[in-house]
């Protein structure tokens, strides 16, 4: 696990090859993470995978989160792992929601990490984040004809109220 100075060193090395790619770093609860410009996410991931001394060759998880009140709204998180040194590194790409009503887009990293194929489909399924260059970006868990992105924070939870007499009398 890179410590806080180690994280800054990684940031500096990335900056040499890709200026302005890393927007921020954070080291919280012993977990290092890089906040990366989404336009350069593939360049950074490739660098972290290939650069000598880094070699984070294993993508242990790819997921997203919706930070609704704050902007940019969506975060796509890449959990990288070096299995020789057993070091983990989190890369975040924060995506703003386009004002035109389109879906937010980011480059797909399936070419780099084949395991990302299903996980990017899952992120697309639940958050409506489009991964450019994904071989088959369709819904994976919800039915194919489902409308909406259910894990977004502004999506209604769903379900239905229980029709007990008590509920009917007090809330009906």
């Amino acid at each position, binding site marked *: 696990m890179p410590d806080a100075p180690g994280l800054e060193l990684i940031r500096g090395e990335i900056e040499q090859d890709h200026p302005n790619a890393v927007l921020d770093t954070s080291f919280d609860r012993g977990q290092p993470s890089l906040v990366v410009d989404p336009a350069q996410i593939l360049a950074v991931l490739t660098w972290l995978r290939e650069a000598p001394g880094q070699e984070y060759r294993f993508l242990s998880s790819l997921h997203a989160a919706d930070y609704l009140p704050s902007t940019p709204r969506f975060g796509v998180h890449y959990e990288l792992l070096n299995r020789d040194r057993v070091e983990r590194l989190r890369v975040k790409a924060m995506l703003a929601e386009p004002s035109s009503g389109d879906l937010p887009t980011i480059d797909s990293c399936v070419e780099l990490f084949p395991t990302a194929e299903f996980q990017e489909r899952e992120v697309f399924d639940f958050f409506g984040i489009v991964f450019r260059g994904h071989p088959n970006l369709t819904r994976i868990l*919800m039915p194919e004809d*489902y409308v909406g992105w*259910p894990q977004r924070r502004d*999506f209604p*939870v769903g*379900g239905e109220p*229980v*029709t007990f007499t008590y509920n009917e009398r007090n809330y009906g």
Partner: protein
Amino acid sequence: MRERQLRARDMLRGDLEGEELERYVEERVVMTNFEKMLGWARANSCFPLTFGLACCAIEAPISLVTARYDLARFGAEALRASPRQADMIILSGRVSIKMAPVVRRLYDQMLEPKWAISMGACSSSGGMFSNYAVVQGADKFMPIDLHIPGCPPRPEAVLYGFTKLQRRIMGNPDQGWRQRYEAAGTEEWARGGPRSEPSAAEAEAYERTRELIRA
């Protein structure tokens, strides 16, 4: 014992006559009607579909057939892996909206007569999963004969429910506490749906049930 054996031998030889023959027939023949016999046979050879949806599947189709609970005592030990051979389906777990068409298709592929048990809170009402992904009660898309409450129900509860289903298959459904407190027909109907009132046929069926219980 010996005497009965001798009498049976005499009957086969054709030596029994008159009052003796009458007594022999009375002892050995049970009179019933065909419907009752058919219901008895169906209730005691009810093959469940090998089908698990979620955690309830550990309780129902898996542990029920083990030696500890032994569904074979009730004639339902032959789990069938094909809906064509099954008489009963146990919905053991929450039905997600993606799974609902699959479950419905399995139910449609089963041959008549067929029965469905909704096991546990999730398949009966959605349970704790009151959200976008789970069907709020399996009877929204298929007819359910019996609901077993619990999260999950103990295997004993499922066995109890299964014996209730057997009573129903035999044409003698239990009314449970409603019968004990003479409360049949006081069921609350789900409101707010497209069918907020019972249909005429359903109302009539309930009236008939009440009459039967009073009698």
